[in-house]
């Protein structure tokens, strides 16, 4: 049994199996380029094969054991793969839109998470403040500064300024601002029964959808769908000049109710049958990317160890130049 296991490990840890599993990884990566497949999912099997081959080689390959730096490289590479695997099982990525003046709401996050991820998003609390974005001529987005207020003990709010490359770090999650942001009309709807609700509608991302600032909206408890358009009176930007993303001052809300068309300025209301809709003013919303990864430091450490060990091996082969391995064909000749 031991002999069989040893032979199996030798086959698994052979250069041929390693080559085949590496080639399989390359094939999956190429397939991911050519076809609409999810590369990270398809890569699991070939990477598992690489890991099995690595571990088997570490266990039984005599030539590998005789070269400490090469051995260390393969150990670090195996650790690298294991840590990345654990990271993928625990990682979470998400995206969310947060309205200016509102608290972050974990229930609105679109989440993609590994099976072992335990969400702590509901522990995250912050208030979205105003934000500014600089644009260089030619619509080149530059620095984003988003003001975030975090509640602390004693009713105190701590203010932090975050951006595309300066995340808000909260409860193990990182919140990065994105190119995705826009305007959000604040509406108050009074239904026929007298129930009042206030909320915002997030218009499509701006300026990417500069000419499509509208959406269809069904008021709460109503069967009727309205079309809502945001009309901005003054030009917000000129493409060839530098500009700053800020909320426009003069806006009107166009409400299309079947054949009827209503234009509302901030503070104005309109009767929609027996219900009422009031346009309270304009806010903005910011789109965030959320990354919940706990193991990036370990991944970096394993990767660095692998690179250093490989460097050590290369240096050792040059120091011992006479031991430079030769191909089988050359040895035979």
């Amino acid at each position: 049994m031991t002999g069989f296991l040893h032979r199996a490990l030798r086959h698994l840890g052979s250069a041929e199996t390693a080559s085949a599993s590496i080639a399989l990884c390359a094939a999956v990566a190429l397939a991911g380029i050519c076809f609409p497949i999810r590369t990270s999912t398809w890569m699991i099997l070939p990477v598992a094969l690489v890991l099995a081959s690595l571990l088997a080689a570490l266990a039984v390959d005599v030539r590998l054991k005789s070269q400490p730096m090469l051995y260390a490289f393969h150990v670090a590479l195996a650790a690298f793969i294991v840590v990345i695997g654990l990271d993928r099982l625990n990682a979470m990525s998400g995206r969310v839109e947060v309205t200016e003046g509102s608290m972050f709401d974990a229930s609105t996050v679109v989440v993609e998470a590994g099976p072992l991820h335990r969400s702590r998003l509901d522990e995250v609390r912050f208030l979205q403040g105003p934000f500014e974005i600089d644009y260089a001529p030619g619509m080149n987005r530059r620095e984003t500064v988003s003001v975030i207020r975090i509640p602390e003990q004693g009713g105190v709010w701590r203010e932090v300024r975050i951006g595309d490359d300066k995340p808000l770090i909260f409860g193990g999650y990182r919140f990065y601002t994105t190119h995705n942001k826009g305007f959000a009309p604040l509406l108050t709807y009074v239904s026929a029964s007298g129930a009042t609700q206030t909320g915002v509608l997030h218009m499509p991302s701006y300026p990417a959808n500069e000419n499509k600032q509208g959406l269809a909206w069904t008021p709460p408890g109503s069967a009727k769908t309205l079309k809502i358009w945001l009309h901005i009176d003054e030009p917000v930007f000129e493409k060839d000049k530098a500009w700053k993303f800020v909320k426009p001052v003069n806006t009107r809300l166009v409400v299309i109710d079947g054949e009827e068309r209503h234009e509302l300025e901030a503070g104005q209301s309109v009767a929609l049958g027996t219900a009422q809709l009031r346009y309270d003013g304009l806010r903005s919303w910011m789109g965030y990317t959320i990354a919940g990864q706990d193991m990036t430091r370990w991944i970096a450490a394993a990767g660095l160890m692998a690179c250093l060990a490989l460097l050590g091996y290369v240096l050792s082969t040059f120091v011992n130049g006479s031991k430079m391995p030769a191909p089988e064909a050359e040895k035979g000749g």
Partner: protein
Amino acid sequence: MIAEIGAPLEAQLLGIAIALYLAATAHSVFSTAFRSGCQETAFVLMVAALACHTAAIGSRWGRLSHGPYVDLFEILSSNVWSLHLAAFAVFLVPRLQPALAATLPLLAVLTIWLWFTPAKDTLAPVTYATGWLPIHVALGKIFLGLATPAAGLGLVLLCRKALGASFSSMPDSGSLETDIYRLLLIAVVFQSMMLIAGAAWAQNAWARYWGWDPLESWAFVTWTATLLFLHMRPRSAAGPMLGAFFSILIFCLAFYTFFGAPFLSTAPHKGAI
């Protein structure tokens, strides 16, 4: 064309550098094909070209306040510079010098491409404001700088096998294959570090260290090709031709990763900026 470059001095310096690079290539090929194979003049022309090119890149860097890694023109320019510098350094080894004639024509493709690429003033995206980017770029240039002379040596082996060309002043094919192996062995260290530094940059910039975008996928495929060669070589019965095949394959993959995949969109890492 060069005439469209914003700063006239940079255009003139780059024009002179391109002319000198191409003159060095022509001289190297001519002297290898028809004369003694002496490469001294080609080296002198390369030094002059590198001096002019360094001044052009330095001037642009100072004027735009960012390194040459934003658009196609800048990436071509910096790689033409770094690859000629790497070829110069590797082929200072006297016994390898005739392979300069096989390597410089590969670089001439890039040089002519650079000549016809419009130069515009660029603005570095906000996500480029990280220390990881110059590290990632420098490591990538060292990797490609080692893979290119390896491909030159591979071409020499291929010419010997396919065309019967002797390259008699060069060592035997077995020794050249060992040189390819050495170059690719050093290259894989820098290639691995380039990927790690790139992942650190991506983590900083886009909150994910790896996203399998086309550029990342091609970089991964190039890395696996190098690993495949290093694993297959000890057991291969193909002899020096294995090294020739893989050195050319790795160069082609790296060439597409550096100059093809990123420019199918308007910026490196499509969609991520």
